[in-house]
């Protein structure tokens, strides 16, 4: 399974994931507090500079990820140009760009396995309110394992449809797709049970 972690290895990949996430939280809150467009411009430049530190390929792929924001940026820009509150418009747009770019930066520089470790550490204290860490662990693994397989089955179903129909598959293929999913769930439940299932007291 491909995660969004960058294929380019950066120094930041070695930093502890927990620290990066904590930093992201603090900076995101800071971004809300700042109202001056000038400071926002400075902030965004620094974020872009961070991307540049990791090299050109990393920078380009980082910028590309911001493109999905264009409809919102367009709307906000037009709105504030029309209203004449340009400074406020710039603040909103830059704040949005910085927040998303920073969050993406953490995702791009953190391995999936490190993220999962953080989740396990965060989940530990929750065992007191009844969360089963083992169940969470298995659930995450199952989704990562079975999503590609479900996509393959969904694609195969669409192809089976097309092989016997001149039209493109319509929503009706979702029905067999869900039946397949539900049957897979039963099979996995049995596989889990065959190897001991979810245990009430699990040793770490």
């Amino acid at each position, binding site marked *: 399974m491909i995660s969004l*972690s960058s294929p380019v290895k950066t120094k930041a990949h070695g930093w502890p994931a927990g620290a990066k996430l904590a930093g992201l939280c603090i900076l995101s809150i800071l971004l809300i507090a700042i109202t001056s467009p000038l400071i926002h411009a400075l902030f965004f430049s620094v974020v872009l500079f961070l991307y540049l530190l990791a090299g050109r390929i990393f920078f380009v792929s980082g910028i590309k990820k911001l493109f999905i924001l264009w409809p919102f940026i367009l709307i906000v820009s037009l709105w504030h140009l029309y209203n004449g509150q340009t400074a*406020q418009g710039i603040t909103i747009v830059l704040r949005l760009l910085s927040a998303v770019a920073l969050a993406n930066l953490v*995702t791009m520089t953190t391995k999936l396995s490190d993220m999962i470790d953080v989740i396990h550490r965060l989940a530990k204290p929750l065992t007191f309110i009844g969360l089963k860490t083992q169940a969470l662990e298995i659930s*995450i693994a199952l989704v990562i394992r079975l999503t590609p397989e479900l996509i393959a089955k969904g694609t195969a179903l669409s192809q089976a449809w097309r092989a016997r129909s001149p039209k493109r598959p319509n929503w009706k293929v979702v029905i067999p797709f*869900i039946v397949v999913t539900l049957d897979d*769930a039963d099979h996995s439940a049995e596989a889990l049970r065959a190897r001991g299932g979810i245990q009430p007291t699990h040793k770490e």
Partner: protein
Amino acid sequence: MERNLTHIALFAALIAALGLIPRIELSFGIPITAQSLGIMLAGTILGAKRGALAVLLFLLLVAIGLPFLAGGRGGLGVFAGPTVGFLLGFPIAAFIIGLIVEKTRIGPIALTATLASIIGGIVVLYIVGIAGLAVKLDKSFADSAKLMYIFIPGDIIKAIIAGIITAAIAKARPASLLSKQ
């Protein structure tokens, strides 16, 4: 226990897969991403609690960097973006849809599931989603709502489809319709 867990996990995977398989066409030729259909079905098929957990699990995996959102998006960035309200609204929507299906004892399942999907998957989801949009874009709720009107017809069609599919599943795999167990 195992069966609950695997149904939750498989539905999280299903929601991801529905957003990623080549687009399916509605009968009128409008291509849709089926991801929000997956949210509705999580509620109608798994019920309130398991449906919401499936969606939460899906979001957790998106957050840690798996490209599971429609169009292959994911990572922490999507939670910093303007549509964060809709993401947070997903599990709430699934919960309410599931609750309505669980509690309604009369009428055909297709109708119940469609109405539940409209209430949870459109009314509630849009309220939370638009509130998020308003905060992120620093606009009033009413102004932000205007941006979303064009999506309503498509979502109503999805709610109807969710109803029909739920009824089909009730027939094909009655034991797997956990919302009605």
